[in-house]
């Protein structure tokens, strides 16, 4: 499999994705759903998470990827843009820098960015696909992450091989387990807040994730039983109807049913914890967005707010109206979903 862009498919275009979602006969749009529970317009609050997407280059081509990332993508953040990110960060007290991609570690300036963010005293999260840690070129990466006390949030759709490989590619499970062993050996996943290891599971199909607490207990028991692997927490993230997951929904005939399920499962209690309310998302080219999903759909922050990281002002971004679309139902379905797992109080 290659990216939608590499295959020159119309669906690679955010406009086409909007059109596909827009013509579905849904009971209501997202703004109407918010309005019905008194939450419209949705506004941002104080920024607590500075999420940098350092590029679309990845060593994997997962079937559900909302970024349309892969080895054939060449968009990566330059050191100059990272410098603007650091300048912006320095002007604030935003506590957490969340670095994502693609495989963020494949950006040639990744380690420099991490070091600088840590030097500013910020907590750093690396959204890691695990297999990148097994690449010959990244042999020293696990030790680097541990030395810099980077929280590793990594993808493992299932604690057994079949579902993991079906979503992420043949052989991914085995490499992921090897990478988790490396991280455990460095002290990750043993309960230390400075070496926090979080697993992320996305459903391998057109259904919602189950209870995060229940799955976490199951994942912990089974990964220990099968592989003697430990980790600190499990995040359940709903698949968003964007890019390659959207492609799969269309091809498998699941699109309408999945979207209906997301709309039916709209949970008002999940709205307050939506990540767009306390996150600023920075694209590989420095453009600003409300979240990584909006970034992939080319939905920039509200007009009037600073549009590029060069012009970043935390105060000017606070209270901005969040740009929403039908894809947002993915974050409010069931227990809610965000880069930090469920969003509703259990």
């Amino acid at each position: 499999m290659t990216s939608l862009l590499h295959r020159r498919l119309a669906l690679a275009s955010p406009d086409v994705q909007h059109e596909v979602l827009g013509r579905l006969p849904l009971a209501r749009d997202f703004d109407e759903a918010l309005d019905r529970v008194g939450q419209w317009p949705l506004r941002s609050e104080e920024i607590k998470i500075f999420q940098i997407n350092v590029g679309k280059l990845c060593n994997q081509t997962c079937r559900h990827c909302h970024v349309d990332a892969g080895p054939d993508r060449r968009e990566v953040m330059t050191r100059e843009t990272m410098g603007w990110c650091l300048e912006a960060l320095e002007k604030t007290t935003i506590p957490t820098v969340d670095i994502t991609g693609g495989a963020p570690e494949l950006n040639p300036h990744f380690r420099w960015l991490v070091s600088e963010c840590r030097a500013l005293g910020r907590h750093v999260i690396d959204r890691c696909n695990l297999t990148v840690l097994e690449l010959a070129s990244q042999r020293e990466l696990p030790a680097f992450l541990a030395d810099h006390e980077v929280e590793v949030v990594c993808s493992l759709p299932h604690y057994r091989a079949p579902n993991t490989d079906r979503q992420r590619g043949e052989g991914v499970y085995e490499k992921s387990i090897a990478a988790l062993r490396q991280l455990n050996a460095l002290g990750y996943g043993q309960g230390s807040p400075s070496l926090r290891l979080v697993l992320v599971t996305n459903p391998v199909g057109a259904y919602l994730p189950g209870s995060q607490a229940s799955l976490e207990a199951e994942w912990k028991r089974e990964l220990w039983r099968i592989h003697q692997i430990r980790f600190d927490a499990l995040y359940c993230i709903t698949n968003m109807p964007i890019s390659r997951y959207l492609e799969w929904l269309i091809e498998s005939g699941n699109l309408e049913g999945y979207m209906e399920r997301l709309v039916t499962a709209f949970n008002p209690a999940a709205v307050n914890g939506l990540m767009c309310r306390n996150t600023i998302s920075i694209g590989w080219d420095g453009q600003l967005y409300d979240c990584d999903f909006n970034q992939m759909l080319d939905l920039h922050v509200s007009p009037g707010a600073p549009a590029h990281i060069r012009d970043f002002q935390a105060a000017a971004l606070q209270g901005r109206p969040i740009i929403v679309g039908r894809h947002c139902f993915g974050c409010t379905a069931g227990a809610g979903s965000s880069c930090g797992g469920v969003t509703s109080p259990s």
Partner: protein
Amino acid sequence: MANHYYSDEDLARFPEIGKNVPDLAAKFFDWYSAVFADGALSAREKSIIALAVAHAVQCPYCIDAYSRDALEKGADLDQMTEAVHVAAAIRGGASLVHGLQMRGHALKLGM
């Protein structure tokens, strides 16, 4: 009115069973959701038991509901297929073990 006995739309309409006798339906649905909460057995284990029972009682609604539910609870297709084999084994074994009754009758009647 549908011209067939089973309609997949009826699954989502299950709560309508409470329209005429709401008190009993409420008791059933409360108890039902309590049954499937994490307990000594995990929610996933309970979902897989439900899936196996759904096959044993051959309820298409339950098979539909618990195929999805088991996936959502973190089961994979290997585990779900093994559960169906458990149901099939019990059904098959139940038939076969009655063969001892047959043999008892036959041996008593025979010479």
